[in-house]
């Protein structure tokens, strides 16, 4: 036995050396041209070829040694750990996990005030606290919540009904332009246009859905992707209405039931006798988007307990079985599409009101991809998971802007934001390896007879479009 173990150990070592060398060779092949050489312009505007053998050596070493360590030590250690893992009886969810949604909700509701409080204490003056909080409420709070809402809306389509939609940003655009155009041309108020934007987006969802929903899987994904691009191209090229790439500016701000957030005597600050500051509007917007996002969540939760919501999930699991039970799958898919689109439209009109400016630039495919990535990372169908994923992804990229100290390390021309996508991708890989079904992969049943038990992710399906 001891012998076999020894030889086992040795063979692992040999295997690790072999794989390490292979990885190093691969890295050499891959990076020798990309990293090993660099073309620069010299002072006479000539291209010169710089050789960077040192850097290349670092790359190759990291790959080789990393692979060696992984095979020789980390993998066996993991295997041993898994072997020793006792068969734990089904653990009760910890109290923290159980009450996490409540804690989260409490934090969200008090977030602006918490920020102000902390900053006031930090700066030693209320004014300083207010101004300082602007960034955190706007860049972090509102920005994240917009994505939370969009992802929750898309979750209805992708997570519940299992229809892969790569053009979700189109509905966001429809909502934003609906508000922008109707408000600048007809002067209609935000509160009237908000539901209208949602309805327009839903109509577009249905219009897209009719021809498209007979397609499945990859085909559906490609066509929705194309739809997203078509909307963007229309916005760029229909210059008479949309002003093309210039976008529409000067869009009216939202009001608090008619009270504008302007510095004048009728403004919000003056009415309440507060010092003038732009931060009130931001806080108002924060609560507005929080309300809209929570509305999305509430509707989603309610719908899941309705026959239509169950039909969506059943559709994700098995479309043929659905039809055999008398469910009209076409209308069921359409309602999923329309409902998801409606929330996209809401978010769009909020976006327009917040920015005061919309242009096709904001509705590129990358946005669709990010929203979808958030849904996938969070765990399809899970509201809490998606919220966490949005906070991590969007908050994380915003955080990159704050990392000024990195410039001191890497030099002045280092801009951390440029590495946003790289980190985004890395994070996705890590999460997918660690939790292939997203942060919260388990599914909460919509009805129960005795006891509500979470459905493990190994049983749920992702749908085939």
């Amino acid at each position: 036995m001891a012998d076999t173990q020894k030889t086992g150990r040795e063979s692992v070592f040999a295997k690790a050396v072999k794989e390490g060398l292979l990885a190093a060779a691969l890295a050499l092949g891959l990076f020798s041209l990309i990293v090993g050489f660099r073309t620069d312009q010299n002072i006479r505007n000539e291209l010169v070829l710089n050789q960077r053998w040192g850097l290349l050596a670092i790359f190759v070493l990291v790959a080789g040694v990393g692979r060696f360590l992984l095979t020789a030590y980390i993998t066996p250690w993991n295997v041993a750990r898994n072997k020793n893992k006792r068969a734990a009886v089904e653990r009760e969810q910890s109290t923290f996990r159980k009450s996490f949604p409540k804690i989260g909700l409490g934090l969200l509701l008090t977030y602006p005030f918490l920020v102000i409080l902390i900053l006031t204490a930090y700066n030693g003056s209320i004014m300083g606290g207010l101004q300082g909080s602007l960034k955190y409420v706007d860049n972090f709070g509102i920005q994240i919540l917009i994505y939370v809402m969009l992802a929750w809306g898309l979750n209805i389509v992708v997570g519940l009904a299992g229809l892969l939609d790569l053009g979700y940003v189109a509905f966001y655009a429809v909502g934003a332009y609906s508000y922008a155009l109707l408000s600048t041309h007809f002067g209609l108020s935000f509160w009237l246009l908000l539901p209208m934007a949602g309805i327009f987006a839903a109509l577009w969802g249905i219009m897209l859905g009719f021809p498209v929903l007979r397609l499945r899987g990859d085909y559906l994904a490609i066509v929705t992707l194309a739809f997203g691009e078509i909307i963007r191209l229309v916005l760029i090229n229909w210059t008479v209405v949309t002003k093309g790439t210039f976008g529409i500016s000067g869009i009216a701000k939202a009001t608090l039931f008619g009270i504008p957030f302007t510095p004048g005597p009728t403004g919000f600050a003056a009415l309440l006798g507060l010092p003038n500051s732009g931060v009130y509007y931001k806080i108002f917007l924060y609560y507005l988007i929080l309300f809209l996002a929570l509305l999305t969540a509430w509707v989603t939760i309610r719908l899941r307990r309705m026959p239509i919501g169950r039909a969506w999930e059943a559709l994700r699991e098995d479309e043929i079985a659905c039809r055999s039970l008398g469910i009209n799958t076409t209308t069921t898919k359409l309602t999923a599409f329309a409902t998801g689109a409606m929330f996209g439209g809401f978010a769009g009109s909020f976006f327009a009101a917040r920015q005061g400016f919309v242009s096709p630039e904001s509705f590129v495919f990358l946005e669709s991809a990010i929203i979808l990535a958030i849904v996938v990372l969070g765990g399809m169908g899970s509201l809490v998971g998606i919220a966490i994923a949005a906070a991590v992804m969007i908050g994380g990229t915003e955080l990159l802007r704050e990392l000024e100290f990195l410039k001191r390390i890497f030099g002045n021309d280092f801009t951390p934001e440029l590495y946003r996508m790289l980190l985004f991708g890395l994070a996705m890989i890590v999460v997918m390896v660690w939790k292939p079904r997203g942060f919260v992969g388990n599914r909460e049943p919509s009805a129960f007879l005795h006891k509500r038990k979470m459905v493990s992710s190994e049983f749920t399906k992702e749908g085939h479009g």
Partner: protein
Amino acid sequence: MVSEVHNNPAAILRVERLSMKFGGLIAINDLNFEAKRGAITALIGPNGAGKTTVFNCITGFYKPTEGMLTMTRQNGEEYLLERMADFVITKKAKVARTFQNIRLFSGLTVLENLLVAQHNPLMLSSGFTVLGLLGFPTYKKAAADAIEKARFWLEKINLVDRADDPAGDLPYGAQRRLEIARAMCTDPELLCLDEPAAGLNARESAELNKLLLDIRDETGTSILLIEHDMSVVMEISDHVVVLEYGTKISDGTPESVKNDPKVIAAYLGVEDEEVVELIEQAEAAGVDDITAAVDLLSTEALHEIEEAHPEMAPTALIPATGTPKAKRARTAVAGAPAAKTAPGKSRGAPTPARTPVKPTGATKAGVISNALPEPRGGKADKLILIQGIGPVNERKLNEHGIFHFDQIAAWKKADIIAAEIYLDFDGRIAREDWIGQAKRLAREGRTPAPRKTGGAK
């Protein structure tokens, strides 16, 4: 044919002149049958005979190339299923189905599966979601009723305890039952079950039988059933339709179908039950019968027995010279299935192709008096035309030198005992009057033997 099935008020489903072609492939060819109201109709036949295709036509998953499918509901409404979309068939014509490869919503709980099945009534009561979303009491009541109905069916299929577990987590047999319960939650008048007993063991099939009889008797639901498990088909069905190559080859009560030579040849073969019977009898009687018969046996026959039932034939009985020749005689698997699944084809090829290993006619002659080394004129009679002889037994008989009806007709008592031992049968030869049948067939046999099946040239 059409007029025969036409306008029969007792029929819940009439299938008339149904044909289904996929490209050049004819899956169903001019099929006529009907399912009676309040009865269990079984659809059986070899694999690929088109049974599931018939189901898919009935439930609207395929549009038939030709033909008419008439569903008559209890209230007299008639629906032409071939013109309706699949989900409308379930919703309006009240036909529900299950699938051969279980199609449960595996990520939903057992209870949710049953609730999804009540989608249409729940949609109505929730005012197409709007009223439900606003929390109207009508929906709350309807939802509670739906859960009660689900509970009723869960009790029926014995799964109340697992109501909150994901359906994908259930063992196979339970999944089968759940799929039936889910179909029943759509309040069907005709329930189409595609191989509900596949993968169930004997006990579970027995439970399934009870469940299906319950459904028929208590809810009055008519059942159309595809099944290979004869213990289910023969026990519960009121009517059996047999398909082969997309055409009907037999139609009648289970008893008549079971004994229909065409069905036996194309589909059933010899049933396991007979062998079970034999073992039971042998156990009950001890090994005495066998020792008594031993002087009639050749060494080969003993080996046959030992091979099949080692527990019954003590090795001591076997003469030391015994070599397992009989075993070898069974030879290549090769020809055998071809001969059975496509009887028309194999007619020309003489069965003895499989039997040549028999070394001496003498050994056999000691067992059955009139055994022949090979069929006369190189062509054997179709022994399976005798009721009770299946392809397997035909082969065994051939191996022992019995090729013709007149040979069987001329059997003496000792021959019968010997043959019964070969065939692992006990008393069946007399019971089923093989001798009489053989005599009759031998007389008719002067003229070319009738085809076993309608197929082929």
